């Protein structure tokens, strides 16, 4: 059977090749790599900035194209400021502000009102800050803003809703090892940021320890108008909208901001190989270490290096691990922006378990190479052009522009940051990139985290450094 089948296949194949057209239209078409285009003219749009008497800062951008109004409030009420034994407090406060009733409205009334108006208000908290986002049709934005103001200013923290919110967060903790990628990210960040609030995660114990009084106190301390920068965009007149916000938030009293000191960040965590034993079809690998803060000019250079290594559409890690070897579907690298403390550089791969060591070796090899040898002029040129050309998208959405302006102000970023960023990009040389790589990338002293079944690994992880087994709770 096989003997007769093979020639048939060959014949079919030859026919398939023979039927492809000998001449193609594309032979007369321009080489796309050589195509030249006029630089895109970008007309910057800047939101109107207004600071209310109580210190609440607004960034308002009109966009009359659709009858929609959207906004995001950034609030200095993030998880970095919660006590060690109450980790989860910032998150629970944000969720319960939204879900626990507001002003004179019961929790049900808030939900019914917003959903009937096809509007939304959602809150969440990350390490550096909490956010409250809303979206409303233009014609009922007053009702929505009134609810939003009550949610932020006068949350009722309904006791039953508190237990529901806590119960759901506890269930999420129970489930947080179910998805291997989520588990790997968490354990990696915890190891790279060890000893710093940004590397902490809530547990059943810390979440259970939170009391109603903790939430009220946290809200009282951090949810203040002078702690809020709000972006608004959409179908309004900026001046009128500022007046409306004044109407809903103006009588909210400011309070001096006692910014808690964050403990120092250890920029040199132990270069240990952490292994989480899981019986999975793949292994997940993270390699990295703390890098720099956003205002270090080297951040911009590192960002370009990262594009070349593992961040752009085509990059070295993607090419070596995925395209050439077929070892992974997801592979790449990132360098995060650090604001009050350094960001993190890391390479990652979700890849073949029986090639775990080989992939890890490849990842380290690529990082080492970018530290030891200059990138090519072609790589630098492509990535520089990519960054310059992408400027066309900076103003593609009014919501994105307003949010960005608000966040830049909120984080204390110099408004000229982007212009300086582009200046550095324009003048960037391969020698500067090499110096930056040598200064900030440490392939030999990186934290490594591997999630996967060691029985199936190709080689022992000890060749990459001292291995420590991570026990999950």
């Amino acid at each position, binding site marked *: 059977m*096989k003997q007769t089948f093979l020639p048939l*296949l*060959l014949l*079919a*194949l030859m026919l398939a090749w023979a039927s492809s057209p000998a001449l*193609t*239209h*594309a*032979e007369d*078409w*321009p080489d*796309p*790599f050589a195509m030249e*285009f*006029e630089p*895109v003219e*970008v007309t910057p749009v800047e939101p109107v900035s207004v600071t209310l008497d109580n210190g609440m800062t607004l960034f308002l951008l009109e966009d009359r*194209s*659709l*009858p*929609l109004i959207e906004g995001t409030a950034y609030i200095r009420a993030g998880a970095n400021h919660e006590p060690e034994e109450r980790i989860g407090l910032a998150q629970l406060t944000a969720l319960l502000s939204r*879900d626990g009733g507001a002003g004179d409205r019961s929790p049900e009334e808030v939900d019914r009102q917003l*959903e*009937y*108006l*096809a509007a939304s208000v959602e809150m969440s908290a990350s390490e550096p800050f909490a956010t409250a986002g809303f979206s409303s049709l233009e*014609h*009922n934005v007053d009702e929505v803003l009134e609810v939003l103001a009550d949610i932020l200013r006068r949350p009722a923290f309904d006791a039953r809703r508190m237990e*529901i919110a806590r119960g*759901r967060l506890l*269930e999420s903790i*129970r*489930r947080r090892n*179910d998805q*291997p990628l989520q588990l790997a990210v968490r354990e990696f960040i915890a190891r790279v940021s060890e000893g710093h609030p940004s590397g902490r995660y809530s547990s059943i114990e810390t979440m259970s320890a939170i009391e109603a009084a903790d939430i009220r106190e946290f809200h009282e301390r951090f949810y203040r108008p002078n702690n809020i920068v709000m972006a608004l965009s959409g179908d309004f007149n900026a001046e009128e909208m500022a007046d409306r916000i004044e109407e809903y938030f103006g009588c909210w009293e400011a309070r001096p901001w006692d910014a808690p000191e964050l403990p120092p960040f250890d920029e040199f965590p132990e270069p240990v190989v952490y292994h989480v034993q899981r*019986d*999975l*079809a*793949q292994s997940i690998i993270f390699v990295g270490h703390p890098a720099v803060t956003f205002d270090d000019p080297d951040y911009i250079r590192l960002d370009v290096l990262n594009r070349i290594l593992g961040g*752009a*559409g085509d990059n070295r890690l*993607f090419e070596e691990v995925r*395209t*050439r*070897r*077929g*070892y*992974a*579907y997801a592979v790449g690298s990132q360098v995060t922006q650090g604001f009050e403390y350094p960001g993190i550089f890391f390479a990652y791969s979700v*890849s*073949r378990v029986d090639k775990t060591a080989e992939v890890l070796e490849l990842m380290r090899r690529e990082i080492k190479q970018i530290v030891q040898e200059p990138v090519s002029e072609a790589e630098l040129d492509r990535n520089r*052009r*990519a960054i*310059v*050309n992408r*400027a*066309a*998208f900076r103003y*593609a*959405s009014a919501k994105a522009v307003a949010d960005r302006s608000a966040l830049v102000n909120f984080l204390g970023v110099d408004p000229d940051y982007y212009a300086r960023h582009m200046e550095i990009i324009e003048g960037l040389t391969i020698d500067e990139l090499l110096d930056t790589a040598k200064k900030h990338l440490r392939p030999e002293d990186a934290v490594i985290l591997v999630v996967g079944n060691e029985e199936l690994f190709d080689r022992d992880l000890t060749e990459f450094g001292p291995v420590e087994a991570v026990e999950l709770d």
Partner: protein
Amino acid sequence: MKRLMTCWLLVVLLLTVPIPALGHELLDRIESFTLDNGLRVLMLPEDFAPVVHFHLMFDVGGIDEEPGLGGIAHMVEHMAFKGTETIGTRDFETEEALLQELEIAADQYFAALEEDDEGAIAEAEQRFMSLREELQELATPDVLHQLFDQFGGVGMNAYTGYDRTAYFVSLPSGRQELWLRVYADILDNAVFRYFYEEVDVVKEERRQRNEDEPTGYLREHFLREAFEVHPYGRPLIGSMEEISNYRYGPAREFWDQHYQPNRAVLIMIGDIDPEADRALVEKYFGVLESEPRHERPIPAEPPQQEQRRVTVEYEAEPEIMVGFHKPTYPHRDAYVLDVIRSLLGTGRTSRLHARMVIEEEKALAISVSSSFPGLRDPNLLVFHGRSRHPHKPEDLKQLLFEEIAKLQQEPVDPWELEKVVNQAQASFIRNLASPSGLAGQLATYELFLDGYENILDYPDIIASITPEEIQEAANAYLTKENSVVGILYTQGDHGGAEQ
């Protein structure tokens, strides 16, 4: 009936949103034309920023695959990123000859594998691998990403569904010719470089999405149980066995048969010049020829007679899916079931969230989706829930059927219906704010729902649905006999709780 009239007045009073005006203004601005080869083109000029979104959608997807070739639509979607005869090669003539040799080596390698002859495998593998290495030397890896990235492309990607396949990217304006030249070339002359390397990539994608991800794992088993005959029951990405056996010939044949201009719609939204850009579309896409449409009958799923159940064990906390077979658009019941989906599962005030998450505190989260896993053929309304310890997935199933019984027995509250109508109208407006979302919707209406203009009808149809229709549809479709239950239990802990 009188109550209905009152609620209508309320809706009209409350929603002064000019949906009809917005919709007609949208349609007025769209320039549409069809090339001689059947390619449909929609152009929507928008002046919000100097950028253009491109969206090329084909009415081809997983359900068009022959049995045994599961996932090949997804595989060829990956191959369409590997370049053409003029893009991504250092020397196409040499490359072409080597690609033919590679197929002969691949035949020998696969034959040796089948015979399980170690010596022959080693020999064939060596030849197979060395040819692949030689070919890699001739190719530019990730060439399309490299090309579009440097010209400022953002969000370049593609997806393959059971029904459709789409390629999309946004570019700074003025680069329309770049996109048109490259994608016309891909349709005409795609070269499937790195084919066997990409087979390995797709295996890893399958492991990541369907094996190491609990919901993906449950979904695959659930669909297999729900559809015995129709290809919605097959994993979209293919089984590991199917992927391992992919060969160039059948993949190429699938591509050539289906990805033709007459099966596609091209959407361009943004800073375009309709007249000049139309000339460019005609220059590049106009010269392509279309093959006659390759018709392959897709077997219809016979009516289900009794409840089907599937359980899996996994190293994760439990979750449950419950599906109900239902018709698809333009059957009016499909719209009625969209309303039911919203009543049951959209938002905090929806019946299932209010009951399971808030009142009884038995669920972490719930969702309800309709048109799952596709919309070309009759499909499912699906409930998905994650229980809260110590409650069980079966507790959620019981509450679901109790809530369905209420829908069957009592007319829906006018307030709830108004809420759903308001939300449908608001979604219509929100969709207009996202070029990629709008492009996907316009393309879907054009390919499957009898023309992009019909996008305007959806909010009106939803607004026309009556409480009686909802009750009737709940009685007709949301029955135990018509349901499929899939449960993922924590490994070693399913405790025989299923009743």
